[in-house]
């Protein structure tokens, strides 16, 4: 009996279980470990604070998506011992494997910034990257009288790097609809030099911020939060006042990665950009937010990765060379408020572009341009996520590698 072990039954781990079970014969036992009972639809955390989604729509039982023939082990992972091809669980149990897939994702680490977990945490300082945080923020915003709202990113990389911008756009839209936009001063504070990481999109998104009267403070490297005076303070001495702070804390890989002694400074797993094999050992692969590959940490990216990783696991089993195919393809809807969204499509070497998607020249979605259709696409993503993505079904017309037709290109500088 051969053993394949998947760590983490979130977006990426669940997809891998669904891809691999039908493709590996009965000689292969597949197990997947996760400590949670609930699978959250994390993209919905963006909408929960504005009462656009109800909590119920964002959670399902984790076992619902684990296919028959795969053992779900509900336990915490303590550490990986690569030399022994073994994983130790928090209850002390040891699991042996022939092939390991790390899919433990990333989570917020608010303790990394001094003062963040001080007296204002969950009173005037909130995150929306966790279910609990997004829900608490919803309750806060429902009765918030207005004032200075600051939307803030601590440091990169973060998962879904456009989400904080989307939050700012949705906040604008929300307060306009409530008839109180004039009582809200909106500021977007970022460690980047502009609205986003990629120049073309930064320009476009920067314009949208100005249009919506959202001030941007860039190159802001947070040192600490001054709770007493309701201020963000950066290493260079810049300060930003807030009444309500919506922050995206530092994102880090799970502590299990640190305990295993295999991660980088942020507990991300060193992984080959193109094959998704880790550099730790040949029989250890990684996917999704847990890796250090320089692609966006997003569900859509995990989806593209899963198609390539499936092929590579099958090749590895057959003793064939791995395909160096992953190109960093990301495809994200960016909600811009007032019932509109734009769509960006990019990879390691290409900037987000203008054009149409998924059909060259036809659409119906427009790249880098606001439209109502894109917003509908973003909302439809929830259905696609639960019904197609997690189950490892191929999404029609959307390829793992980026399609260059029908798009107006510009090469990245890096």
């Amino acid at each position: 009996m051969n053993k394949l072990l998947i760590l983490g039954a979130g977006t990426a781990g669940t997809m891998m279980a669904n891809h691999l079970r039908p493709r590996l014969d009965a000689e292969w036992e597949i197990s997947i470990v996760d400590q949670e009972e609930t699978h959250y639809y994390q993209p919905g955390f963006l909408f929960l604070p504005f009462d656009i989604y109800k909590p119920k729509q964002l959670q399902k039982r984790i076992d619902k998506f684990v296919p028959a023939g795969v053992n779900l082990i509900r336990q915490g992972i303590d550490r990986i011992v690569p030399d022994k091809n073994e994983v130790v669980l928090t209850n002390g149990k040891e699991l042996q494997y022939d092939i390991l897939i790390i899919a433990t994702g990333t989570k917020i680490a608010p303790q990394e910034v001094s003062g963040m977990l001080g007296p204002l945490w969950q009173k005037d300082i909130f995150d929306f990257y966790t279910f609990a945080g997004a829900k608490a923020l919803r309750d806060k915003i429902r009765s918030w009288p207005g004032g200075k709202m600051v939307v803030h990113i601590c440091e990169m990389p973060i998962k879904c790097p456009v989400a904080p911008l989307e939050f700012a756009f949705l906040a604008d839209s929300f307060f306009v609809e409530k008839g109180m936009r004039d009582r809200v001063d909106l500021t977007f504070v970022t460690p980047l030099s502009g609205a986003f990481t990629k120049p073309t999109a930064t320009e476009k998104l920067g314009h949208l911020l100005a249009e919506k009267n959202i001030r941007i403070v860039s190159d802001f490297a947070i040192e600490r939060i001054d709770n007493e005076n309701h201020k963000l303070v950066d290493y260079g001495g810049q300060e930003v006042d807030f009444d309500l702070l919506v922050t995206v804390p530092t994102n880090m890989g799970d502590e299990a990665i640190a305990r295993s002694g295999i991660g980088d400074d942020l507990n991300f797993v060193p992984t080959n950009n193109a094959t998704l094999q880790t550099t730790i050992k040949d029989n250890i692969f990684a996917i999704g937010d847990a890796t250090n590959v320089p692609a966006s940490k997003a569900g859509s990216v995990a989806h593209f990765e899963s198609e390539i990783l499936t092929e590579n696991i099958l090749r590895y089993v057959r003793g064939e060379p791995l395909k160096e195919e992953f190109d960093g393809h990301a495809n994200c809807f960016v909600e811009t408020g007032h019932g509109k969204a734009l769509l960006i499509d990019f990879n390691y070497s290409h900037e987000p572009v203008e054009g149409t998607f998924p059909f060259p020249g036809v659409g119906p979605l427009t790249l880098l341009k606001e439209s109502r259709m894109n917003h509908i696409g973003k909302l439809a993503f929830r259905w696609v996520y639960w019904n197609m993505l997690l189950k490892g079904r191929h999404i029609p017309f959307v390829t793992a590698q980026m399609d260059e037709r029908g798009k107006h290109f510009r090469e990245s500088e890096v």
Partner: protein
Amino acid sequence: MDKEIAGMIVAVNDEGYLTNLEQWTKEIGEAIAGEENIAMTEQHWKVIEFLQHAHRNSEALSIRSLGKHGPVSIKEFYVLFPGGPLKKASRIAGIPKPASCV
């Protein structure tokens, strides 16, 4: 494109970052620092050496990694290279502008 810095012709990109670290000399670093109104001291050069070393080993650079593994604290780094220290120090060091992720 090519640019003359400290009497040498070197290849730079449109933001003035050297595209070939092999062309870098201390005089070039000094001249770029001058453009940024930074007077180089022993401490500054320690940071520059650290950045070049990390770049040669293809290590990704961030404020965090510098604070953790570098010769000075983040706070001191900001004092040495005020306003966008990583970008400025990288330009002086002759390495690419750190791609601060995706």
